């Protein structure tokens, strides 16, 4: 198990390095000169040259990459071209907001979706199942921003029960979280249902009934326990997706999270910000995959033991 974890971590680090090179190189290929964007036309060429040197833009790509990585290892993501603030400080303020938003949304989603998916699978073809499937089909078809806007109009503008935008109180999180949940829940329900249906067809479920277990025990101890392995994988795999979904939601509700920072960074060609954001997203993805692999190994003895030893 320990060897396995070490192996997965080194693979993860390798992946992060590759991604960082790609991110760095790709932004360099973006059209337009960031210095021209940040300065006025009146600014003289000398000053511009000065700025280029300050941002290391005069150096060749590979040297800039090395500098960037070195700085990053010292917790320095460079300075925003637009605001001149250190990117690291901005990130420190904004990443927690995004994580809070997305993790809350994911948890709420799971708590609602897993029982519904389980029940829909168990009562397959019942009225309950059909209603759930039809409604979820509808929600997979509508985009999250549409739901967000509808929620805003309904609860904030018309009923005035919830704040329209911002992030200062927990109440402010209700609509953004709800929008994220509603847009993601349909696919989670469907996936849970599919997985539970698969498990329900397993022979060991018949064994569980045959030895005399009650329906509820069979469902919880044997069906859900096994289906949860996939649900866990799903959960961690979807963290990066939900974060990308949060980009739009943050913009709609003007929540100053990383998503908003990323979009404005792209619009302003503020390359240090874009680099930092994409890089953080990449790391998050890798970390989630890693957690996912380890948890699966813990939950599934077939994997755990094939990895050698139980501890």
């Amino acid at each position, binding site marked *: 198990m320990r060897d396995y974890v070490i192996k997965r971590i080194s693979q993860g680090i390798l992946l992060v390095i590759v991604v960082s090179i790609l991110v760095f190189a790709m932004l360099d290929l973006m059209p337009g000169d960031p210095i021209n964007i940040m300065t006025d036309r009146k600014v003289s060429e000398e000053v511009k040259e000065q700025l280029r040197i300050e941002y290391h833009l005069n150096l060749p790509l590979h040297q800039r990459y090395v500098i960037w990585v070195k700085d990053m290892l010292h917790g320095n993501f460079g300075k925003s071209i637009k605001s001149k603030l250190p990117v690291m400080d901005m990130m420190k303020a904004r990443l927690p907001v995004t994580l809070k938003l997305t993790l809350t949304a994911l948890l709420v989603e799971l708590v609602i979706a897993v029982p519904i998916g389980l029940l829909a699978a168990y009562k397959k073809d019942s009225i309950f199942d059909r209603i759930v499937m039809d409604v979820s089909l509808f929600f997979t078809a509508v985009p999250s921003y549409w739901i967000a806007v509808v929620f805003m109009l309904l609860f904030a503008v018309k009923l005035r029960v919830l704040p329209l935008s911002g992030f200062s109180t927990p109440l402010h999180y209700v609509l953004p979280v709800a929008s994220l949940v509603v847009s993601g829940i349909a696919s989670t329900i469907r996936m849970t249902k599919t997985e539970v249906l698969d498990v329900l067809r397993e022979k060991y479920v*018949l*064994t569980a009934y045959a030895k005399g277990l009650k329906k509820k025990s069979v469902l919880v101890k044997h069906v859900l326990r096994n289906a949860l392995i996939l649900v866990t994988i799903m959960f961690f795999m979807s963290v990066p997706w939900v974060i990308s979904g949060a980009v739009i939601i943050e913009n709609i509700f003007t929540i100053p999270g990383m998503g908003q920072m990323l979009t404005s960074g792209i619009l302003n060609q503020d390359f240090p910000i874009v680099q930092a954001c994409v890089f953080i997203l990449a790391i998050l993805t890798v970390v989630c995959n890693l957690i996912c692999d380890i948890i699966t190994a813990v939950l599934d003895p077939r994997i755990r033991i094939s990895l050698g030893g139980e501890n």
Partner: protein
Amino acid sequence: MEDTILRVEHLSVDYKIKAGYLSAVNDVSFSIDRGKVLALVGESGCGKSTVAHTIMRLSIDHNERIGGNIFFEGQDLTKISEAEMEKVRGKHIGMIFQNPLDSLNPVYRSGSQVAEALRLDGLSKHEARERVIQLYRDVQIPNPEERIEAFPHELSGGMRQRVMIAMMLARHPQLLIADEPTTALDVTVEAQVLNIMKEMCDKEGASVLLITHNFGIVAEIADRIGIMYAGELVEEGEVHEIFRNPVHPYSQALLAALPKIKKSEGTIQTIEGTVPRILEKKPECRFANRCPYADETCRFSSPEAKFIAPDHMVRCHKR
């Protein structure tokens, strides 16, 4: 004093499928006496597992339509509620399935899965553990203290099936249904596992409904044999009687083909054709298209079950 533990009467099971209803079991009647072993044999697809699952009221697809009655210890299992059926399963009727790897939950230790059954009877964790170790000893699993901690995939097929036997006899049921318990096992292991099962059942005084392709097994441990074809029981009687004097053309073909029956496939090489899937019940003999004695009567009317001796049932126009 009634000595019959299970009496199946005119059982029919149809599965709802896209094309309509598939008649998997039709008008099957038999009974099992206390402590006795009835073997059900027939090619794959004859409806043997369906009979077994229907008695236990187990279903994967929930697409069956059931007719007839199943009397177990006086109560009709087709009529009782699901809650009452939960009390019958495991406690009064145990069941072993064909593939011992699929039959155990891969994420739990084998011993804890047996203990789970015992805990239903109110045993404490500790008592259950002791009893599981004893059961493992009874089914001759070496090092029971260690093996109870093993996960199913760490055990061989034979060991897993022993765990199943331990689990299903743990609560002292009066009837054990064994659906091809050794088909997936090596020939050498097969005999051991069967002997263990038989010994355990004898010790418990449990009756057995044994589904198998293997006539060697039947000869060794069964008291009676029922031969199924295309969802119908075509002949039923005492094992020695039927082995000596098979009356139904299908039974005769089966026994004549004896050395040629492939264990894994359960098909019979010497009879042309395959088991038909009956989508529409028609007045005909279901064996007519493969039967050497078939004539017009056979194609246009269904033979009824009749007794050619007080204890020997056959379903054929010509006998």
